């Protein structure tokens, strides 16, 4: 073997070794983050923490029950708006969207998807908070739904396109009108994919903080209804993290653990849903 060839082989081995090291660095970042949060979060996690209200500033102890319920409310509201709008918009794109309007909708969805979430927060502030003169759960839900719509549209469209044309044609040939074909045949066939997209987008918006800063705003007490400032998990983490109190720092880690568990479960669930062979495939 010539020296040149051996040198080339050495470069080959070295470069691929390097790419392996890079992958290892990327993955260990993930495991370090997860491990660190689990380690610090568990020590402050307790039954009281998830069922009690925050104590007044300066006292130690207390929980974040209001933030958990607040997050559920805001994310629930956002899903109520975002998922139907996204899915129906995607039906238009997948079934009728080969035209100019379809192109414009896709373009607009991409634009909104790229808009920094803090800018969407400002938009929701101007749209809901200013006219109502009140920070509210409603405005937080609206802000998150705007982030959610393009995510749902793009995933749902993809899954609707995967439904084979032959199934559509078979239903049409049986004399069903197109709208019934879409509602009764196409959507159910793609249901699992749509559900996956919905779960992913929910776990994505559950961690959004920036758009809630001037919409949901945060609150240290219970709030019933949708029209008052409301606590949310990510907001609580932010406020506690930048506070000067040690006890609040500990609570921030515990809250981060809860939030990251929600996000992880959502992502893993979505992956499992996609992995199972669908009943239509045989």
């Amino acid at each position, binding site marked *: 073997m010539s020296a040149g060839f051996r040198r080339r082989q050495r470069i080959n081995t070295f470069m691929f070794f390097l790419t392996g090291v890079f*992958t290892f660095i990327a993955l260990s970042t993930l495991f370090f983050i997860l491990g660190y949060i689990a380690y610090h979060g568990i020590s402050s996690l307790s039954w009281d923490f998830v069922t009690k209200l925050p104590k007044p500033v300066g006292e130690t102890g207390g929980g974040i029950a209001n933030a958990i319920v607040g997050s559920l409310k805001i994310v629930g509201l956002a899903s109520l708006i975002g998922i139907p709008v996204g899915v129906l918009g995607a039906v238009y794109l997948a079934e009728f969207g080969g035209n100019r309007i379809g192109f414009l909708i896709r373009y607009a969805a991409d634009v909104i998807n790229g808009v920094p979430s803090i800018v969407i927060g400002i938009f929701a502030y101007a749209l809901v908070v200013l006219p109502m003169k009140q920070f509210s759960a409603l405005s937080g839900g609206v802000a998150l739904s705007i982030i959610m719509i393009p995510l749902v549209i793009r995933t749902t469209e993809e899954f609707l396109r995967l439904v084979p044309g032959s199934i559509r044609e078979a239903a049409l040939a049986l004399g069903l009108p197109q*709208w019934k074909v879409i509602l009764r045949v196409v959507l159910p066939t793609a249901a699992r994919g749509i559900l996956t997209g919905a779960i992913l987008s929910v776990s994505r918006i559950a961690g959004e903080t920036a758009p809630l800063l001037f919409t949901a705003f945060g609150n240290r007490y219970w709030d019933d209804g949708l029209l008052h400032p409301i606590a949310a998990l990510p907001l609580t983490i932010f406020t506690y993290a930048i506070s000067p109190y040690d006890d609040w720092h500990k609570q921030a880690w515990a809250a981060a653990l809860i939030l990251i568990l929600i996000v992880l479960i959502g992502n893993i669930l979505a992956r499992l849903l996609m992995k199972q062979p669908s009943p239509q495939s045989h």
Partner: protein
Amino acid sequence: MKKIISSPAAPLPVPLRMRRLRERAGDRLFRLFVMGFGGSVIVLAGAIFWQLIKTSHLAWQKFGLPFIWTSVWDPVNDVYGALPFIYGTVVSSAIALAIAVPLGLGSALFLAEMAPKRLSSALTFLIELLAAIPSVILGLMGIFILVPAVKAAEPFLIKTLGFLPFFRGTPYGVGMLTAGLILSIMILPYITTISRDVILSVPRSLKEGALALGATHWETVRLVILPFSRSAIFGAIFLALGRALGETMAVTMVIGNTPKISLSLLDPAYTMSAVLANEFAEATSDLHVHSLISIALILFCMTIVVNGLARLLIYQVNLKGAKQ
């Protein structure tokens, strides 16, 4: 019966014709209905843009275009300029890219070319999980781990690299470098997963051709795979850049929030999104609010341009791949 089927021109019996008309009306109605939902996205995008323009005009009237390159930010005297924030956003994103591009591209090559398929898909899922970690949690990690770590490393940086203007000053821990580091973690998954997909879509025949000519695997990567997927990889990088420009929480928590332009990466700085997060809820004067929204408008335009470029680059390669 047979006749009706064979010649479409023949009139249908009346009840059947009525039914067909009704169904066609139903189809048209349904189409309009879903078009309304799809169209709402166009309205929404337009409304965001319009809202930003409408609520920022005071600042543009008062300061004009020089607002963009003025570096004074003084809420007490009601004088505003966006330059420190634009500078902070651009430099912190550049640091993030400088770290995340080699790491991401390397990982993508490993996942696409080296790892066995099953392992590769599992590892890719893990890297996607990194993208799913909420930014506020990375900010929390930043405050309690990265800031102390950077603070500990800074005296060393000043001593060894202090001859460069980028590594001078006092070791605070918070600052441009820390923000860039945390941003690099956030954008790494985007670069990795998109580049992996792009590399996987390089036609097999091209790779095999190079290998058959005696190229080593790495030479195939360097001479065939990377040139072929170059523009889509640039697309992935631009997409990641778009994310980095708008990233708010984690950066706000570690950058130090000081509206000053300093060459040194160790000094505290400020970004466009961070100033919005910190000052928007508390801004009292109309001009302050309008100046902040002007910054939001500039940020909005920057991300649109960057994302548009990204999509163009990725789209082009998809076409190229389809042609092969």
